[in-house]
């Protein structure tokens, strides 16, 4: 298939899908979770993945900036698809996810550099997430090792943090993946400042460490 970076190539649902990716991308960018042009967002529809193209900021996604790549095999759209497309693809194959957000929220990255897991101190994140694993791989971007670690972890958790890199959140709905990303960052923010205070949190649900 010859690359055509636009709507004409796409399925009838393309309009609705790129608009949704753009809407969520703008929110992530505005919150500072997508640094400059980094991070990626995708939606699965049938055996296709719709993903933000490379070289476009999440805050500026337009109708030509979401590319359609097959779930199985490659076509020439891979030329411009996000650099983490293979990671997204492997997660889709291994889980029931229909939407994935990979972001670089600052407190999540900071927290991952000093901890092995994120067990939220605050109520909202505790109810919603229970626990967020932090995974560590040598080549933490675009590698097979990263694919394997994410596939395994996300079969049992809706989000994880890749140490020193960023968050991966999966859901059946993109809006929900956005919510999960926000909650991970919120939990990391709260935990970070509580720890920084040097005081012990009076609220740690120890049972969640077993989650």
């Amino acid at each position, binding site marked *: 298939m010859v690359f055509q970076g636009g709507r004409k190539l796409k399925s*009838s*649902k393309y309009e*609705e*899908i790129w608009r*949704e990716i753009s809407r969520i991308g703008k929110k992530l960018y505005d919150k500072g979770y997508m640094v400059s042009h980094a991070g990626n967002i995708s*939606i*699965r*529809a*049938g*055996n296709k993945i719709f993903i933000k193209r490379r070289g476009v900021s999440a805050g500026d996604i337009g109708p030509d900036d979401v590319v359609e790549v097959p779930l199985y095999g490659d076509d020439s759209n891979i030329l411009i698809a996000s650099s983490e497309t293979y990671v997204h693809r492997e997660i889709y194959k*291994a*889980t*029931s996810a*229909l939407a994935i957000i990979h972001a670089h929220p600052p407190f999540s990255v900071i927290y991952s550099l000093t901890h092995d897991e994120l067990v939220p101190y605050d109520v909202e994140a505790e*109810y919603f997430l*229970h626990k967020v694993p932090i995974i560590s791989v040598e080549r933490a971007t675009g590698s097979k090792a990263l694919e394997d670690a994410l596939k395994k972890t996300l*079969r*049992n*958790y*809706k989000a994880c943090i890749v140490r020193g890199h960023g968050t991966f959140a999966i*859901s*059946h*709905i993109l*809006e*929900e993946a956005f*919510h999960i990303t926000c909650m991970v960052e919120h939990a990391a923010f709260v935990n970070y400042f509580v720890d920084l205070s040097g005081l012990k949190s009076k609220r740690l649900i120890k*049972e969640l460490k*077993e*989650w």
Partner: protein
Amino acid sequence: MPLYGWFGRAVEIDVENRKFEYYEVDEDVLLKYLGGRGYGAYYLYHNMRRGIDPFDPENIIVLASGPLTNTPVPTSGRFSASTKSPLTGGLIDSNCGGHFAPFFKGSRIDFAIIKGVAETPTYLLIDEAKVEFRDASQLWGKDVHETYVALKNKHGRCGVSCIGPAGENLVRFASVIVDGHRAHGRGGLGAVFGSKKIKAVVAIGNTRPAVKDQHKTLIIVKDMLKLIDANPITGKALSLLGTLSTFNIMYRYGVLSTRNFKDPLVEGFEELSAEKYHKLYFHRKFACHNCPVGCGRVSKIDGRIMMGPEFESQFAIGFNLGIYDYRDIVEIHNLCNQLGLDTISMGVTLSCAIELSQEGLIKESLRWGDPQLVKRLIYETSQRAGFGELLAEGSLKLAKSVGHGEYAMQVKGMELPAYDPRASQGMGLAYATSNRGACHLRAYLIGVEILGIPKRVDRTLSAFKAGLCVIQQNLYAAVDSLILCRFIGYATHEEHYSRVLEAVTGRSFSSEDIMEIGERIYNVERLFNVREGIDGRYDTLPKRMLEEPISGGPSQGYITKLYDMLQEYYELRGWDSNGVPRREKIEELKI
């Protein structure tokens, strides 16, 4: 490792020869299908020949508990029954609450397989060591309440599951009723009981299954209870206003129709609101075994205590028929339960009949909004008397008998529940692709499209719905096999189910394992149906939903854009364009 959660034991009951035999259930089957609906689908797919008439002695009933049944897990008192449906000709499973399941599983069995036809009316008495075939001649002809009271008085502390006259008379949508008022409602399970001359099953076992990790189980149970309590639907709406709370929201969004889905429901809000019911007729609430929610309702009307109503009954035998007075709705709901009839199929078959009458297509003179007429027709249906003979066949056969099948609001022969699929695109796809026919419990896209769970997705869009439908169908198939109540799914998720299943059984399960088990079950059900000739040609909706826009209210102008969603749905499922699972999918799922 020994089994935990499951007993790993089932009993095969031959009612014709009055024999029973216990057998061990293969652990591999338990891990792949869990129990409940999953085991029913597995057993019937592998053990029943193609083309068996649902009333033939060779039809099989699978009664099934799940690995979480009668454990501390909230809502784990549910029970499943599967058979070949006399209404659809396909596989049917029907899930029920109440208090039967703990006594059944307490008999140290996970499943009971019922075969053959008894010579005379019989009820089965199941305990921990045997099955007894008791004479039910004196009970035959009795209604559900009379039967329940007689058996309860005789056996004391026990679970009673029985049929009414409708089941005895082979009404194709007859139900099986538990505790005298909770229903295995859909698909005609009661008629298959009737065809086998089984009036009731009484279980008196008292053994709890072993739990592998009690400490961890209780940690997860505590978390589930916390979320159930905090969630506004499970912690507040369903508890305070029952399932009727659904009515108010659906009305406001224009999701409800009346008069056989011909007209939008744009009147009667005050009379039908959940608040009105609770102000005038609410007596107390009712909860099934180990349920923290308590969505059931007990009414007090003119000094009489009656069970119900439920939202689906309020629709089907209420405003669907032009009946808006709660006093009538509760009375008709109880009449259906006592006769052993599914209120949804009964109500929608009646609305089909009334519309046919209004159009001059049948000779009977029927009209909307006449509770006395409705009660008479329901009774005649249960007896297969007069016009009831035709009504007892269901809406599709009724409408086809006069050459106008398009007046039957059904999918695969099963009548539509309350949610008008034109007002909720995802629900349209869910009805059309449901293996058991039009059903709101195979996938509940109303959850995302109207209630916003977990997030709201535009109900008018066909995008995103195929994936959501597949996910929900798979998840719910697994939940129906554990077995837990669907309502706690508003607050808890697959991560709870996998972790608690792991703690109870001591076997390893991830969240995605739960989804894959559900997918396997959904595919086995589909394979059963395909073998019976029910393939993608039947994944459709009544013509009215596809071609006649809603004529007023908040959803004016909407139709279901089914074919915008269907091919993507098949693609996601790994099925061919005729809705048949591909070989690769069957191998991937190890069916």
